[in-house]
């Protein structure tokens, strides 16, 4: 057991089992943040030019097509701001929503209001609930800390599938450096790893997977060449505060409490299962990113961490609801909560394959080849 430590700059701590600190007590995540900001964020005139060029490229590639880009919408801050931004830039997006059976009323209302006001068409991929419930239950039973992976994987899959179907090259995503860089991989690993999802489901699922949107190893790399996933929020001066103001004032958007709390399952997973079972408080990384980007002070973040993830009465309400939806009895749910913790590396995955020395040796040359295509 290592001694408890917290980063001197952000609020990441040894609840990330892989965290490292430099001689000044600053963690590896802060260093990653600085590196990513250096590499991806361009401010001022240079930034404006870069954005202009991107918009021109998207428009050119989309000429004669009904849409020139696809975006994902969840009803949350980042994705809604992407919708707002792309319309402001004069692009013609198609919005995709993944309905995994856990949308809150707030989420669907936010999507409805913003897309109507922005005049953006919506396509919804509704996951087969019986099948998806089986996947989510399997992840809980597998006892790894990453039960949101199936949803995240499916979102990437449907965006890629739709772009391919429409012949659209650009997928604009809400991921961004400033507000989400401090995520420890030990807390959630293998989002693009179909083998991991499939193997885990094979072990703990009860019915065949027939319709779940996914992509394998080959498709993933093919799409890296044929499609462009653009983190457009890195192209503008994106701050949470300003985004919230714009969305609320201009789009009739309503706030739902915490990062990703627009989904009931995510709220419960991040606000209850992760902290209670695994000792991970995801707010730590979100707040840490905001500290590094200058949106809040370390003291403010520490104060916020003192508050419960969300109201205990709502946690209890959610616990009952989640158990009911997943078909868990109280006893089964307690078994899940008390099961020994496992990790991504305890199950078969592409990750294991990639770790082999021969593959590791090949990576630099593959990267060079990929760069040629891009």
């Amino acid at each position, binding site marked *: 057991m290592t001694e408890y430590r917290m980063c001197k700059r952000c609020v990441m701590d040894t609840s990330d089992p892989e965290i490292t600190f430099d001689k000044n007590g600053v963690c590896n995540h802060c260093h990653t943040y600085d590196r990513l900001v250096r590499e991806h964020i361009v401010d001022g005139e240079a930034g404006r030019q870069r954005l202009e060029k991107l918009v021109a490229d998207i428009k050119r590639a989309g000429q004669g097509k009904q849409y020139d880009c696809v975006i994902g919408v969840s009803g949350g801050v980042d994705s809604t701001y992407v919708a707002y931004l792309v319309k402001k830039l004069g692009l013609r997006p198609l919005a995709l*929503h993944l309905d995994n*059976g856990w949308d*809150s009323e707030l989420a*669907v*209302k936010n999507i409805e209001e913003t897309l*109507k006001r922005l005049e953006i068409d919506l396509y919804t991929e*509704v996951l087969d609930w019986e099948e998806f*419930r089986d996947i989510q239950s399997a992840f809980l039973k597998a006892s790894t800390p990453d039960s949101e992976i199936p949803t995240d994987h499916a979102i990437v899959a449907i965006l890629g599938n739709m772009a391919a179907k429409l012949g659209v090259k650009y997928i604009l995503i809400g991921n961004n450096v400033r507000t989400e860089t401090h995520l420890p991989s030990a807390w959630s690993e293998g989002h693009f790893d179909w083998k991991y999802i499939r193997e885990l489901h094979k072990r703990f699922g009860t019915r065949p997977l027939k319709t779940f949107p996914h992509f394998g190893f080959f498709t993933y790399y093919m799409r890296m060449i044929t499609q462009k996933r653009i983190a457009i929020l890195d192209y503008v001066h994106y701050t949470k505060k300003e985004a919230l103001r714009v969305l609320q004032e201009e789009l009739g958007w309503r706030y739902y409490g915490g990062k990703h709390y627009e989904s009931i399952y995510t709220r419960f997973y991040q606000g209850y299962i992760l902290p209670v079972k695994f000792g991970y408080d995801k707010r730590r990384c979100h707040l840490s990113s905001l500290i590094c980007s200058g949106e809040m002070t370390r003291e403010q973040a520490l104060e916020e961490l003192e508050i419960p993830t969300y109201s205990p009465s709502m946690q209890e309400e959610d616990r009952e609801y989640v158990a*009911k939806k997943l078909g868990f009895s109280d006893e089964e749910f307690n078994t899940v909560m008390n099961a020994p913790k496992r990790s991504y590396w305890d199950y078969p995955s592409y990750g294991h394959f990639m770790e082999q020395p021969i593959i590791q040796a090949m990576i630099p040359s593959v990267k060079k080849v990929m760069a040629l295509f891009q």
Partner: protein
Amino acid sequence: MIRPRVIPALLLRGQGLVKTVKFKEPKYLGDPINIVRIFNDKEVDELVLLDITATPENRGPQFDLLKNITSEAFIPLAYGGGIRSMNDVRKLLSIGIEKLIMNTSAVENPSLIRETADHAGSQAAVVSIDVKKGLLGKYEVFTHCGQKKTWLDPVKHAVEMEKMGAGEIIINSIDRDGTMQGYDVELVRKVADSVQVPVVACGGAGNLFDVSEVIKQGHASAAAAGSIFVFQGPLRGVLISYPTPKELKEFI
């Protein structure tokens, strides 16, 4: 004056909800528990839930699923599909269903309407009538989810059902279902003008103007609709919505 009710009508197929067009081409909408919860949070007037495969599959209601659904709804819930006996009626009432909708049973075993009304009050005994226009433009009543023609006339059937104790009639146009081209106002008016009990129009709503029209011109007491509350935009993206109290007041 009380504002006429505007009711989302949801179709259950197996364990999932769907939306049909002319009773065909079921499009999957997702898990009923979450969808009902969203409508509940939107504070809709009431909800109609119809199990469209119960009668064709010759089975009764899925009580366990319905129990999970009613536990998420604090709004009046009307259920139809496979109700064949007083035993079904009692069980449904006990899990929190407020209104029992009968369609095939109302034709094949009308005394069940009487018994339901006697047991739970006429407001709980609802008859739904599925209607299709024949080749000569004559309205005909269908049962078994639109699969079986009965040769009954909808107006006469509605009057008959009122006599049996039905406290409400849902009149559903098979031809308009899911088309979003407007209600069959003429059909609704014919029925509404022939009975004293409230008539709920169903089938064809494309927007709130249609809803308002079927109430004003069709003399319906309430309007039920599917597509406008589950789809958004030209691509019919699945998204649950319901007008705000302000919008409802404006239109209806």
